[in-house]
């Protein structure tokens, strides 16, 4: 089956004059299959945002090709099909809301697609329900919190009925409460709506909830696998200037001191279960 996104041998160089060329991506290959929740992590300047911007033709590769459902992003005639298939949510919630009210903004995408008015209304209501923002239809963006604005931005993308949503560090500018709101929404998109999610972030704790974690470093893919797999090598992550989730770190330290941990725990709950099993096993003996 054709993956939603197929990135083949892509390199990208930012042109900043003769001397200031920055190679942001180097020979990257990624396939994102339909229905998968992918987290892309990496420290600042690792190329993760550049990679995201290739997924709906905001950037075109310097070398190599990106295909969205088989459509090459270089093909200008397919541009709007590509952008309808892969929606994008950006980091700064303030700079992606176009309209003066919530409902007008959510309607913006479908309006651009030429969807009939009554159908737009339906989609706007659905999208706002999905992100828990019903009742705010008439509110202005400046009356909302960061987390609310970011959920409106997500609704704006959902209303276009994309197959895939790419979120480019959507939580980076939010407070902890806003972050939780957005993450809950993102999880719901992936698990309940069956939308393919590519979540770019530098928070390890956010990568834990994904099906697959891609770690970027210096324009290359450094690690790629399930979260348990990726987090099982804390030393490798630290070399990439990334933190390991605290529970994983704790489990790792325990196993270094001779405790036999049955798996790499990703959440507090998992770790608690493992520790509980180990302790009850010891006392039973």
């Amino acid at each position: 089956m054709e993956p939603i996104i197929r990135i083949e041998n892509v390199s990208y160089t930012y042109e900043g004059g003769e001397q200031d060329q920055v190679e942001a991506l180097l020979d990257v290959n990624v396939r994102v299959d339909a229905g998968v929740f992918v987290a892309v992590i990496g420290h600042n300047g690792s190329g993760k945002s550049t990679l995201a911007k290739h997924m709906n033709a905001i950037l075109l590769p310097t070398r190599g090709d990106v295909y969205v459902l088989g459509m090459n992003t270089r093909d200008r005639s397919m541009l709007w099909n590509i952008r309808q298939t892969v929606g994008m949510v950006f980091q700064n919630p303030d700079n992606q809301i176009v309209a003066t009210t919530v409902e007008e903004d959510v309607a913006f995408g479908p309006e651009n697609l030429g969807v009939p008015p009554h159908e737009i209304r339906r989609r706007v209501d659905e999208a706002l329900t999905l992100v828990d923002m019903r009742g705010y239809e008439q509110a202005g963006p400046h009356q909302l919190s960061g987390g609310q604005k970011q959920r409106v931005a997500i609704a704006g993308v959902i209303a276009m009925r994309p197959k895939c949503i790419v979120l480019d560090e959507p939580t980076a500018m939010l407070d902890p409460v806003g972050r939780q709101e957005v993450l809950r929404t993102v999880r719901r998109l992936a698990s309940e709506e069956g939308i393919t999610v590519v979540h770019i972030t530098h928070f390890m704790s956010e990568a834990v909830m994904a099906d697959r974690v891609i770690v970027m470093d210096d324009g290359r893919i450094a690690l790629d696998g399930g979260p348990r797999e990726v987090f099982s090598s804390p030393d490798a992550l630290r070399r990439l200037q990334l933190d390991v989730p605290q529970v994983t770190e704790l489990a790792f330290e325990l196993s270094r001191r001779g405790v036999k941990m049955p798996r790499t725990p990703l959440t507090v709950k998992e770790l608690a279960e493992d520790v509980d099993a180990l302790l009850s096993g010891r006392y039973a003996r």
Partner: protein
Amino acid sequence: MRMPSVIVGQYIPGDSLLHRLDPRTKIMLSLAIVVALFSVHSQWSYMMIGVLVLVAVAASRVPFKMVVRGLRPIVFILLLTFMLHLFMDPGEELFVVWRLRATREGLALGLTTAARLILLIMATSLVTLTTSPIVFTDGLEKLLNPFRVIGLPAHELAMMMTIALRFIPTLLEETDKIMKAQMARGADFDSGGLITRAKAMIPILVPLFVSAFRRADELAVAMEARCYRGGAGRTRMRQLRLGALDAIAAVGVVAYLTAAVVLF
């Protein structure tokens, strides 16, 4: 939870007859009143138009003082034109102040000119008082659309207005933030003469402009990511509809204005 829509400008939310009129009807009828005001000369005509504007104010249920508030910026112009007419127009002497001769003709002309200005401002501000900026922009876009054939970018103008409205609160907030940041580092915006104070604004304006351009850049990318490609092929969720109310208002007001112009 229902929140009031953005209050930029002077829109007063409500559900009166005027609020329910299509923005196009309101814009065109206020224009008709302006045209009528400039094509009549008799006091009786002004009286008739005055009655119409007052009836409209009553029908809008906007507090009268809000309508009058719109006149504040032109008080000076009003007084000046009245005085100029009163003392400068030639005619039958009414009274003399120092070396200035007030005339009967001057008084009449001064009063009608003032009435003309007052009614003009009242009629047009009634439109913005009863139409939300969003709906107003929609109406303007629809009205200007026919002029696209002569190259008028109707959709682009409306989009610019919408984005401007959208970013006014954001930029105000940002200005406040920058001012506080500069004040925390000892900037003083309140003392000194006009030039000193204008100079003190530079450290605010520079970061504000830089950030506005960055925002514009990011917004453009976000808009394109949501398939924005200009007005062609675009639909709108909110449809403006001309109803029976608009027809009645249009026919009634135009007939009344015609009478006011023709009768006297």
